[in-house]
């Protein structure tokens, strides 16, 4: 009989040194919010991930992102046990699991901020500001808090499934953004300051440029980092957009990534295959997936998700118009032909061998496998694609054994080519 095989080898994770600074930025972000919530020293706006954060910062608000909290609930695997509490309130298990786990978190008074930072609860909002460019769910989500906490709810309604961008669409979003000002002035007690607004837009623009460069470092063969690294390091691009701290952070991160590229340091030792991840992360399984791919000598080099925080259309000279452009050109609100071309452009840049589509049960807007795209893209690019079923936060929707086998078989298929 044969001797027992060694267990599946776990690749050594190559820690990114800038991560220490990242931790501090994220901690400072939450401590500042917590302090403001408890003392009333500053007004707090809750904002959706691609909402008008620059405007809010320009008006002196601190900005809190419930989607970031949702991601934390998913990453700490607290989400799955909290979702049913929202379900019991009438929120279907089929809708956004950021929404359901966050509402569940509120109902149960449990938050990952406690374990991570000793903070008792998320900061109470003074105003809730949404942009439905993500989806309709964000509006319904904020509406819960508006009713529950008696807080004003205002927002922007996006155009959807856009092919060619029309000027009126950009202008519409620009005007909607501008129209938020009176309500925000009433909450903040301060007059709108154009210079402060333009400064925030400038910082966001610079952050976006640096974030793009960080992501594009993965075009190197071998890649210096993976999608699983990027989902963590995008934190400041999400929560500190419009601040100097975010700019400084990405200058630091970029330098480290460029050094890795120069020295030929690979995130995945012996990188043999390169993959594009299309769709949401599976937050509660980042490490497991990262390790599985590494053990298969495969680097997930690029993704739609991480690319979605590049807003290099922003222009401090035309703040409203450029925000309108940025929110309208966004991948998530575009039509299938645009998305297919986008992925093709990424293929040309990042030179991946295959695409993984993640069909997230509760996130139709970010599950781009549902209208035949994988088959069309596979044929167009001549590379294999695979779809795995899971979710961003609700691990009841993720059959781990099935996903692992699918991924392993996919890499076997790439090995045969």
């Amino acid at each position, binding site marked *: *009989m*044969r001797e*027992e*095989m060694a267990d*599946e080898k776990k690749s050594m994770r190559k820690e990114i040194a800038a991560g220490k600074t990242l931790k501090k930025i994220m901690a400072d972000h939450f401590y500042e919010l917590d302090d403001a919530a408890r003392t009333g020293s500053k007004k707090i706006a809750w904002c959706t991930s691609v909402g008008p954060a620059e405007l809010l910062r320009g008006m002196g608000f601190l900005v809190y992102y419930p989607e970031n909290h949702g991601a934390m609930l998913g990453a700490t695997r607290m989400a799955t046990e909290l979702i049913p509490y929202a379900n019991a309130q009438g929120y279907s298990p089929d809708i956004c699991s950021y929404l359901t786990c966050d509402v569940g978190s509120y109902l149960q008074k449990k938050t990952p901020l406690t374990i991570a930072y000793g903070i008792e609860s998320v900061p109470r909002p003074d105003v809730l500001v949404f942009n439905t460019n993500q989806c309709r769910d964000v509006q319904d989500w904020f509406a819960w808090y508006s009713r529950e906490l008696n807080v004003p709810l205002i927002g922007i309604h996006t155009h959807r499934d856009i092919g060619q961008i029309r000027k009126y669409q950009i202008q519409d979003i620009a005007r909607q953004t501008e129209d938020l000002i009176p309500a925000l002035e009433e909450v903040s007690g301060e007059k709108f300051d154009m210079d402060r607004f333009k400064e925030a837009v400038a910082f966001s623009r610079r952050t976006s440029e640096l974030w793009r460069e960080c992501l594009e470092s993965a075009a190197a063969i071998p890649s210096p980092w993976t999608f699983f690294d990027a989902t963590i390091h995008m934190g400041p691009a999400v929560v500190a957009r419009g601040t100097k701290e975010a700019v400084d952070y990405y200058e630091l991160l970029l330098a480290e990534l460029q050094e890795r590229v120069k020295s030929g340091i690979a995130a995945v030792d012996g990188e043999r295959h390169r993959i594009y991840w299309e769709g949401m992360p599976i937050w509660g399984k980042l490490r497991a997936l990262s390790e599985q791919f590494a053990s298969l000598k495969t680097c997930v080099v690029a993704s739609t998700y991480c690319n979605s925080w590049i807003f290099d259309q922003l222009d401090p000279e035309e703040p409203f118009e450029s925000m309108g452009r940025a929110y309208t050109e966004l991948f998530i609100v575009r039509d299938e032909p645009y998305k297919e071309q986008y992925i093709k452009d990424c293929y040309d840049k990042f030179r991946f061998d295959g695409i993984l589509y993640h069909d997230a049960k509760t996130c139709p807007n970010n599950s781009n496998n549902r209208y035949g795209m994988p088959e069309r893209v*596979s044929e167009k690019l001549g590379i*294999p694609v*695979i*779809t795995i*079923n899971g979710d961003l936060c609700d691990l009841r*929707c993720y*059959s781990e*054994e*099935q996903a692992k*086998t*699918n991924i*392993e*078989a996919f890499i*076997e*298929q790439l090995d*045969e*080519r």
Partner: protein
Amino acid sequence: MGAMNKTVFVGVDVGASRTKVAVLDGEKNLLGFCVRKSGTDFQKTAEECLEESLKMAEASPESVGKCFSTGYGRKNVSFRDDTKTEIGCHARGAYHYFPIAITVIDIGGQDNKIIRLDDQGRRVNFKMNRKCAAGTGAFLEEMSMRLDIPLEEMDGLARTSEHMVELGSYCTVFSGTEVLEKIRQGEKVADIVKGLFYSVIKRVMEMDSLTDRIVMTGGVVEHNPYIVEMVREITGKDVLVPEHPQLTGAVGAALFAMEASLTE
């Protein structure tokens, strides 16, 4: 048939429902095999299956050149030399019997797979069932229990059907409720059983498009060959079946074992 002094190659397919072992000689002849319920101790079941297969092959444990494992419990086989996914092994096994461009449809105990191969046997595409076990052997086992009909009698019953009863439910448990409703309405059991087979086929056909030549594998097909005839009738395509469809994964694994041995 005997291989006392010749090297043999072993494939172990540990499925969620059944464990299958295949023993091949250097000329790729199937010398021995065994199928057993996997149970909860995969290692023990694999060992017992191997023992029985080697006995059938008249081969000693020392004559095993290499062993590859596959299936859900592939990592539980301590005596393996390496593993390959069941997708890879079913593809390899099916191509071994039919070395042409084919679509392999494997209907397992809890998993279904559709694997498209080119004329060189390379995988072009594959899909597995999404999230639930509707349309797999587990579905038929549940229905067998609900109808109080032994699994092994279902194929014969379905063949006698004159007016198939179609079921609408997707979920296995809700399908059971629907079946009871049909019985209450006076529908014949044979017609319902054929409808159950049709449900399995529908779940599979929803997964992917099919090429002109189909190879069907897996335990469900082995024990219910009427399903193959139904697929032929429904699709109008050339549907092929290996001699032991349930062993296809194990045979594929054994072939990989042999190839690994040759490249050393």
